[in-house]
């Protein structure tokens, strides 16, 4: 197990390095000096510029610049964000918890609703309820992330104005609230973005879970259970579900990129101050140091997610332990 983990992590590091290289090269061979927007800004002090030039070695050949960048990254120096007027690392550190909170909420909501929907479908399989639920999840599976977010925004901004519709907390009141008030304020703000992410993400779970449940149902031990007179719902709950959860765990690996993509759009629509909003914001402000670092960090999370999923899967399924 340890060897497996070590190999996966080593592999993951290589992947992140590959992404970093790709993004770095793409941005550096793009027309125009990628850092010109920030380097030539009159509001940037000469000392700061000198520091940047030194840290990026912009007059050097691409390969050398790349080596510099990589070394800086290893030292924890991700560069200076011109649009945020602070080090990239600080900007990312401030945004990351918000995105993780949103993704965790979406993950829990997505898995919960997905599994529930799948069970309901399998219990009513072949009937109208199955088809209706299948249709709903198929529809949501086909909806562009940003469009669903926009529709929910309009619905809750204009028709059912019960939740705040932007930001991660009340911009003013949050600071003044007590601990309970702060949590309540946070929760109130997270509802809409988390709901959107849940709705975007649950069809993926539901579709796979349903298929896995149907796969598990005809197994021998379930047939035995049925022969013993165990009621259908109990069979589903106790036997089929525990067995069918396994394939769904692998979805964790798929979940991260999907959640991240969703988060980019959901954060943009609901102004949720996370990584997605940073990334989208850095497009308009041409804040390349920020953009590069955010994409690298995001792919590190995707890699970590897939390692987590693999590890879990191996722990749950003993057959896999001897493979490879």
């Amino acid at each position, binding site marked *: 197990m340890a060897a497996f983990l070590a190999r996966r992590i080593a592999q993951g590091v290589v992947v992140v390095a590959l992404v970093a290289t790709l993004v770095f090269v793409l941005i550096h061979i793009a027309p125009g000096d990628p850092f010109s927007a920030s380097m030539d800004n009159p509001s*940037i002090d000469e000392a700061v510029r000198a520091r940047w030039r030194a840290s990026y070695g912009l007059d050097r050949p691409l390969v050398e610049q790349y080596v510099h960048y990589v070394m800086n990254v290893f030292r924890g120096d991700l560069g200076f964000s011109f649009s945020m*007027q602070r080090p990239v690392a600080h900007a990312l550190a401030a945004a990351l918890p918000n995105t993780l909170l949103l993704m965790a909420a979406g993950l829990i909501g997505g898995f919960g609703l997905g599994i529930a929907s799948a069970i309901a479908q399998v219990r009513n399989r072949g009937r109208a309820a199955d088809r209706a639920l299948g249709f709903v999840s198929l529809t949501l599976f086909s909806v562009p992330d940003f469009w669903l977010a926009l529709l929910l925004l309009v619905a809750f*901004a204009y028709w059912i104005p019960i939740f705040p519709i*932007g930001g991660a907390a009340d911009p003013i009141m949050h600071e*003044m609230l007590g601990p309970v008030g702060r949590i309540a304020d946070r929760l109130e703000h997270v509802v809409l973005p988390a709901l959107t992410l849940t709705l975007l993400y649950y069809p993926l779970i539901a579709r796979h879970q349903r298929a896995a449940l149907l796969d598990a149902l005809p197994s021998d031990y379930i047939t035995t259970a049925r022969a013993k007179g165990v009621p259908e719902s109990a069979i589903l709950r106790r036997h089929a579900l525990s067995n069918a959860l396994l394939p769904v765990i692998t979805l964790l690996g798929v979940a991260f990129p999907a959640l991240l993509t969703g988060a980019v759009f959901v954060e943009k629509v609901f102004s949720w*101050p996370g990584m997605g909003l940073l990334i989208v914001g850095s497009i308009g402000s*041409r804040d390349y140091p920020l953009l590069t670092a955010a994409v690298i960090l995001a792919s590190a999370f995707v890699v970590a997610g897939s390692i987590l999923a693999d590890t879990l899967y191996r722990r749950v399924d003993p057959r896999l332990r001897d493979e490879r």
Partner: protein
Amino acid sequence: MVDLAPIDTLLCASVTPPDRRALVFILALTLSACEDRSTPPGGKPAGGTLVISVGGDPESLLPPVSSTVPSKILGDLVYDHLAEIGDSMNTVGDAGFRPRLAKSWSWAADSLSIAFNLDSAARWHDGIPVRATDVRFTWQVYSDPATGSPSAAAVASIDSVTAPDSLTAVFWFGERSPMQFYDAVNEMSILPEHVLRGVSGQALRTSPIARAPVGSGRFRFVRWTPGQSVELAADTTNYRGRPGLDRVIMTIAPDFNTALTRVVGGEADMLEQVPASSLADVAKDTNLRVILTPGLDYNFVQFNLNDRRARGRPHALFGDRALRRALTMAIDRRSVVRNAYDSLADNAIGPTVRAYPTTDPALRQIPFSPDAARRALDSLGWKDTDGDGIRERGGTRLEFNLAVPSSSKGRNTMAVLMQEQLRQVGAKVNIYPLDFAAFIDRETKRDFDAVLGGWHVEASPGGIRGTWGSAAATSGNNYGSYRNASFDAHVDSGLAAPTLDERRAHFTIAYQTIIDDAPAIWLAEPRRVMALHRRITTSGLRPDAWWANVADWTIPPDRRIARDRTTAAR
């Protein structure tokens, strides 16, 4: 000396129109219904929080080097001028000016110097008294070319500032001019020498005080969390009295739409500029009132007359006056403005606003005529020889990039409309939406073909020297580098003229010159439509700076909401 006619007093409206078509109705109503006028805070218990919603961070909080509106608002609340322009908006002589840091002033017999007597009670927010040497230091910062202040041109008429004693600052002028008092007090926010000493030039912009100002105004700076908020608190021991509000918070949304939803959603109290497309939503909100003020803004497509790469060379397209005029003819400016702003804007008539008494609204415009534009382009040798719908001449395509600040809904809309109208005459426009900071950056570096720019003008028409004058062509705010000596001369003569009629005559010639040269396509003069929470009682909203009297705004105790009652947490 002559008092200039006051511009239209502020209009205010508080109606709830059923839909967008009721705009006209609002405009009609504003002329009669005005609910609150100057309401001094005296007697009323102070308290409450004003939350201003903006769509982007202020650039800097150091007045000499900031030019965006959010920076200006905060700078004017934290810092003081020597005296403040009055509600009459007079800029000639000192009539109507109200004392601020200067308790009083006296003119020398020859009018070549003005002595300001500082208020002895005035203290910086760190407790140190405000001294005349601070005033002298401030003038040095503003006029130092190394500072690169956009206001440098405006204070150029001041020869020197001396401090004969600790509470007297004397301004010396090279020559008498009608607006020398205005020049002395309006442009400069007095800065604390003891905090800034030793910092100069570029270092000012990145000095700590640019992010955490120490002023003498009635609000003191508390904190700035980039991308989130800037918080100011009442300076309770201020020499001019405690402000009516406890706190002023500027909440920074990542984009304009969020800034709007915060106000509609009740998380903020005020939005400075409501776009026409959202007015219906704002007007429906019973917690908000809509305040309309005449515009002191105008926007335009500004052509870069120089090549964006090689500064010395004229631009391949826009170096040619005739081409600029032809492109202007292709734009149906009336319809474009109407589409983007509904009835909330007039057509700009030049690099000026109608509110100035020096503006003649009947200036001769380049007429809208696509046919004339096509004929002009034909005769200039721009022909579509390869049949792709785009004209070319000598291997150069009639194609250019138009940078637009993505935060401005109105300007983005106008860009798409003009793109199509220019296509009709065979010119191709590529629209580049940019974040506001990146947009300003492009402008100052002169790295653009054309920008959809805009200016918020000041009480005096003299600011035009800094935005369209030759002196500002290389490094100032004249981003397109338009140069015309005759224009410069008439602006200067106009500003020096002693009577309104003479001023107006000179400015009319200057405006006509620049309109005919077409360094820009003049688009809209938007009215300012603010949304403000009803519980807030305003006081004297000055057209050029609605925030000038925020310290006198109040919130009646019985109408306060949760955020008014909490005090700043540490």
